């Protein structure tokens, strides 16, 4: 299982605690993890990636094993520690605004 840590407001929206687990078939990438996350929690569609372009929303970033994957192509393989569930994928909201 893949572990994903969500920002606070999205936890409230999805009615979950900080960490959720999703199952991914095949390569573990940013896209496949987010696809699985949105399938399991459809209320998150459009909140992390734009509905139409599927691009990351500007004020969110993706971190894996202390590396910023936000600007990586969405089909880039995530580290083995993410694929094995040893480490979570962090979805983090920008510390900005009010």
């Amino acid at each position, binding site marked *: 299982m893949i572990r994903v840590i969500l*920002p606070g407001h999205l936890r409230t929206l999805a009615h979950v605690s900080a960490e959720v687990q999703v199952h991914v078939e095949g390569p573990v990438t940013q896209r496949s993890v987010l696809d699985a996350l949105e399938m399991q929690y459809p209320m998150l569609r459009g*909140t992390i990636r734009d509905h139409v372009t599927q691009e990351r929303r500007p004020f969110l970033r993706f971190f894996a094993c202390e590396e910023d994957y936000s600007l990586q192509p969405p089909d880039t393989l995530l580290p083995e520690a993410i694929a094995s569930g040893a480490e979570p994928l962090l979805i983090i909201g920008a510390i900005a605004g009010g």
Partner: protein
Amino acid sequence: MSGVRVLVGTRKGAFILTSDGKRQKWDISGPHFSGWEIYHLKGSPVDPNRLFASQSSGWFGQIIQRSDDGGKTWTQPGTPPGESATGPGGMPKAESNKFVYDVSSDTGKPLTTHMWYDGTQHPWEFKRVWHIEPSPTDPDTVYAGVEDAALFRSTDGGKNWKELSGLRGHGTGPKWQPGAGGMCLHTVILDPSDPNRIYIAISAAGAFRTDDAGKTWRPINKGLVSPYIPEPTAEVGHCVHHVAMNPSRPGVLFMQKHWDVMRSDNSGDSWTEVSGNLPTDFGFVVDVHAHEPETVYVVPIKSDGEHFPVDGKLRVYRSRTGGNEWEELSKGLPLRDCYVNVLRDAMAIDTLDKCGVYFGTTGGQVYASADSGDNWAPIAEHLPAVLSVEVQTLP
């Protein structure tokens, strides 16, 4: 005994205030959707327990919430928590927050660009829902006015949204320009006497009307004069802040423009100024008495550069003559050191015999009058900045 439910949208959540018909003691629930911007909430006239809310965030985008029990519980239409994410055939369930501009060939692709602040052309980009307008006849039909300006409609209780793209596609779109708050479609008025007639207003494009249920639209800005735009009497480009109508007289409209309070007696075909003796005719809200269609309310704001009341005195002005002659209403309102604003959707009027008037401020107060504006009292204080106020009169 009948009662009222006041729906308050703020910068950091929604609040629901309830009272009996006396409107003296108030219960406050909330914050709902804590931490999110709630631009607007509104109830269905057909089913008062059905409420819709526009929840948005600069981080996470747009969410639509619906309550079917008067605001006690909320879900995103089509995606109740705990249920399967997919419907029959493995298709994803409805995506109630999906607002996608129509670019289909049968509606006039390409549906134009609009004018950016610097005068260049800019593509439409969805940002948020400013106003939700439930149908007066069908609890599953609801309209959404959005930024960048467009009108969407749902016919399944908010599960799916489709643009009424004739509005953007009718030809003047390249001349529409964002106001300071963005290029928002903020006013949606459904004519109760004619289901095919809808009025909308956009800042800063002006007012528009359809007479064929949204297929085609035309600007209704004749008579508006805006000296601060290149062509002061242009067909479009006016910064209309809000429009109000008494349902018993659908052809009569009142408008608070950027500057100027206006009135139309012919469904918007032409407008005349009725600012009269107002201390300033800049402002955002305008509303009409529930039972006296010539009684109108505004909250004058000092100027476009100074968004606060004149002399630090928060006052509502009422005209009982359909404009021009205005009286100051100040009993119970702060009359010194008050520098809040009252935003365009932040006034509402109930339909009790002695109708109640409500408005919210950017300072987080909600004021109410149970006697048509003669006397006022705060019914909530210290809320986040108020973005919108609606009221439901309950049986």
